[in-house]
């Protein structure tokens, strides 16, 4: 009888004692596109994650980390299912990865309402930076529309007449709207193509016929290699038309497949491998050693996510169950980003610099980037006050 009472008392003590102890490990759901239209980005994010984990010794902020990798296939319903499973069955502490805008839009509200923390390593849909912002989402990559703004501001300086080409989905709409809002010059024509389109011969013909000297292109992940090759074959680049777009159009992931076609392209980037700061030199060297080439931005973004998380978990001394403290620590963004500097706006999207780089052939014979100019400095969301969060 006394043993039973003792047992119950001990059990009660254990239950009471639990909340005061720090977690003994951190469980992260790495939800990315490993198959489907954005698989190229998902795999690159995975490589960035690996480099980060190696550097951190498989710990985050001192806590041993368990990564559960799931494939969202680029489909919103599959992504939501994997996220829900991760939260309910695997009991993950937070979700990262997040390659695709459509998946992000599908899981943002349900996960946020359930109190699940999300840190995006790639997608940054504009609606989530404005009215639909939530304290449970941190975006470490960039906001889709701002990348377009960077391109548009530069185009306003150099373009005489522009043709705008975009794809028919969330990130495509965000980018096109961004360009149209901030590009002040004449628009010679516009095309919005289906996401599935692989053959751009008609649209390139329209570009030629429009006599534009500038082509702005937002091309989706599955089509951009084909697009760049077709751009090269079209000869437009040799006939006075310059291509402007985001840096993922021609980066170290796709250079091998694109041949010489990207040379001369002017791309907007918030980061590129040749950026000169200590954290980036370290990251690029580690990536190069592991994978034999320079990283693309998706790897850098995911690497930054892990470094950010590491700093935040360290700041709360491992008490990740205290979500408010963890959130405040994340907001401080007190880590050495390979971008040189990093801070969050009140919408929890980055406030950062944007550059214009030109694709050039380096002395080694390989393609790389040459910095043209820093086009936007400390750029945050244009309509920040549309997000009701204040801190």
């Amino acid at each position, binding site marked *: 009888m006394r043993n039973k009472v003792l047992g119950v008392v001990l059990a009660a003590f254990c239950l009471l004692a639990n909340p005061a102890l720090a977690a003994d490990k951190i469980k992260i759901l790495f939800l990315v596109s490993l*198959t489907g239209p954005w698989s*190229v980005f998902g795999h690159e994010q995975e490589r960035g994650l690996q480099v980060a984990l190696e550097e951190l010794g498989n710990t985050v902020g001192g806590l041993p980390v368990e990564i559960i990798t799931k494939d969202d296939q680029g489909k919103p319903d599959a992504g939501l299912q994997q996220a829900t499973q991760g939260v309910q069955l695997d009991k993950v502490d937070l979700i990262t990865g997040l390659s695709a805008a459509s998946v992000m839009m599908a899981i943002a509200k349900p996960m946020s309402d359930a109190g699940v923390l999300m840190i995006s390593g790639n997608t940054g849909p504009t609606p989530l930076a404005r009215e639909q912002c939530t304290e449970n989402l941190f975006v470490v990559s960039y906001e889709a529309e701002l990348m377009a703004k960077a391109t548009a501001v530069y185009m306003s300086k150099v373009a005489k007449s522009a043709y705008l080409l975009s794809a028919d989905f969330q990130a495509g709409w965000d980018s096109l709207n961004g360009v149209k809002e901030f590009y002040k010059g004449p628009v*010679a024509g516009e095309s*919005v193509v*289906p996401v599935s389109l*692989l053959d751009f011969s008609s649209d390139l*013909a*329209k570009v030629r016929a429009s006599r534009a000297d500038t082509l702005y292109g937002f091309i989706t992940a599955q089509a951009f290699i*084909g697009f760049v090759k077709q751009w090269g*074959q079209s000869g437009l680049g040799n006939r006075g038309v310059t291509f402007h777009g985001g840096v993922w159009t021609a980066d170290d992931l796709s250079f091998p497949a694109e041949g010489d076609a990207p040379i001369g392209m002017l791309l907007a980037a918030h980061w590129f491998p040749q950026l000169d700061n200590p954290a980036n030199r370290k990251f690029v060297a580690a990536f190069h050693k592991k994978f034999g080439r320079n990283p693309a931005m998706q790897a850098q973004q995911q690497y930054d996510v892990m470094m950010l998380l590491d700093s935040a978990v360290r700041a709360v001394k491992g008490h990740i169950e205290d979500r408010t403290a963890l959130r405040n620590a994340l907001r401080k963004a007190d880590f050495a980003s390979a971008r040189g500097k990093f801070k969050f706006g009140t919408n929890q999207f980055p406030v950062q610099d944007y550059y214009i780089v030109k694709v050039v052939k380096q002395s080694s014979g390989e393609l790389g980037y040459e910095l043209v100019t820093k086009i936007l400095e400390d750029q945050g969301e244009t309509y920040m006050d549309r997000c009701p969060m204040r801190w």
Partner: protein
Amino acid sequence: MIDGPFLVEELLNGVQLGLMLFLMAAGLTLTFGIMNLVNLAHGSFYMVASYLAAMIAGLTGSFLLAAGLALIGTLLLGAAVEVASLRPLYRRGHLDQVLATFGLTLFFNEMSRILWGSEPYPMSTPSWLSGEVQFSSEIYYPAYRLAISVVALAAGGALALFIRYTKLGSLVRAGANNREMLQALGINIRLIYTFVFGLGAALAGLAGIMTAPVLTVQIGVGDPILIVVLVIIVIGGIGSIVGAFFASLLVGVVDTFARLILPMLFGNEMGAPLASMALYVLLALILIVRPRGFLVDS
């Protein structure tokens, strides 16, 4: 903006698209016409041929060698698939065939993923075709795209000659017209089926090989094309290669110009979806006038 050179270029684009579709349609219409088999896995031959060509080109650096080997490989693959899995389906209804060949598509997609990974596989255009052909001071067109059209025309011509002037070709034609009679005459219909299926697969493979350097080689790349090809063989008449030829050109040009004109007339938001629908509206209109397709002799 719409000027002569632009229209010529768009016309060339439409014809190239049509000819590429014809390569796929010829095989599919033969299979449907002669063997009464609905083959949803046809797009898989397009895809596998692309992968084979890209892989061999990457290893050897020779486009011609890659194209040749990939073509032979796809022909053999088609024959193997027919012998191994399709024979029980001939007796069964079209629904069973749809289910089974759809399953084959899934199988090929996953097999490709295992063999070649999920990321796009690069293939470059051969350097001797990377330039442009100048038609006039204003009109120029990528040499490689012209090559696609030329090769497709040559393949179509070779197919026509084969069907018309060889004994095997006449057996194939006879089988398209009257399968039962052919069997009653004691001809080894099984071998003919295997051959026809392999030939169809090789033609689809040729389309895949030629377009691989222009588009991207990835999982499932042939499947969306298949839907358009089904429309083509219905328009052209099931079993008719000549019908498939003209229907392919019609579809290629209509699709290309619909995507050009409709957004101009209705703006981008309405025009782009309308352009995607244009093909099926065309199909409906043709079927109203000619229910068996354009060129099928009843």
